[in-house]
């Protein structure tokens, strides 16, 4: 299956487009198929697009699902870096996240 981002979400992509696409992919990719996410025609994709897309998918389907089922194609260097960064962020465990928030909360409340 090939999904054209420019057709599906438009030329300029931010956080809401990432969340919407994640739900679309979750519901529309058959379990035995690979989806090519095609970036051709995309002008700008903000980091929050990738974070929302990969973060939402990781939460719903798990990181291995992203690796096995999704293949980004026609990406520039910049987009590839954003994709890799988002994967790295999503790999943070719940325990690590909780510990970071707990430390932040202490400093925020003095």
């Amino acid at each position, binding site marked *: 299956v090939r999904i054209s981002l420019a057709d599906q979400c438009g*030329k300029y992509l*931010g956080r809401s487009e990432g969340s919407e696409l994640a739900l679309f992919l979750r519901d529309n990719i058959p379990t035995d198929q690979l989806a090519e996410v095609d970036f051709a025609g995309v*002008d700008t994709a903000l980091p929050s697009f990738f974070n929302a897309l990969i*973060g939402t998918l990781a939460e719903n389907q798990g990181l291995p699902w992203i690796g096995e089922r999704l293949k980004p194609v026609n990406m520039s*260097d910049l987009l590839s870096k954003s994709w890799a960064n988002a994967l790295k962020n999503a790999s943070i465990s719940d325990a690590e996240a909780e510990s970071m928030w707990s430390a*932040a909360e202490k*400093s*925020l*409340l003095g």
Partner: protein
Amino acid sequence: MADLAEALDIYDAGSSARLDFSETLFFCPVGVAWLEAQVLKARSRGVNVHPAVGQENNEKYRYLLRTRTSLASPAELSTRRTIPLQHFPRRDIGGFVEYLRSVWLRQLRRLGEHERGYLVTTVGEIFENVFLHAESPVGAVVVGQHYAKPFSPSKAELHLAVVDVGRSIPVKISESMQRESSRVDHAEALRVAFQPHLSTDGLVFGTGLPMFRKFIEKNDAEVELYSGRGWATIGRSSNFRNNSFTVPGTAYDMILRGIDWVPGGEETFF
């Protein structure tokens, strides 16, 4: 900045406020954007805001015309160094990207496509925050300025101010912690917002502002921001502190300097 917001808040719908610039000494880009955002906010409440009579020859008022604020029309043509103000009432990423490329960065002809894309993408994240986190009632106001340094081009500066009047970053963080904003240290909230993996809505995926910070630090740029009671500068050195006053929303003033971040060239901004 906070004084003007408070002063205009006093006016009721249907009343008129007249702004007098005769005592104004200087407008920085973020001051212009802030003024315009407050005018738009007051007008959205039904307050009529106009310049006071007899401002025509006032140099500072004429600068507001050149930046194309809504205080008068028709606006004068902007100069090469004045980057016209743009109001984005709605989330329009494409419009913002095009503004950055064709208006803000127009002088940087030798800036590579990759660097241009990196810059636009990183700054675009701030714009996205205005609508997703701040939910600013009048959207975003953006304006820029070139500061020439003819005898020292490497010190030339390119400013971009982005202002909203929605929820400030500390207020948003307080909400995600389910705490009263008055109990949260606003300077610390700004520090947290710029840390990787901690976002203003309490998710671990927050990377927009940390990426922006990385960009600023890597390119010898600087950003100053006011948000709630918090104030911060990020760049050569980072400082966070609490102000004695509160600003509604967030005001960013981003400064790019000289040629350091322009690959392989002796590009100047002018």
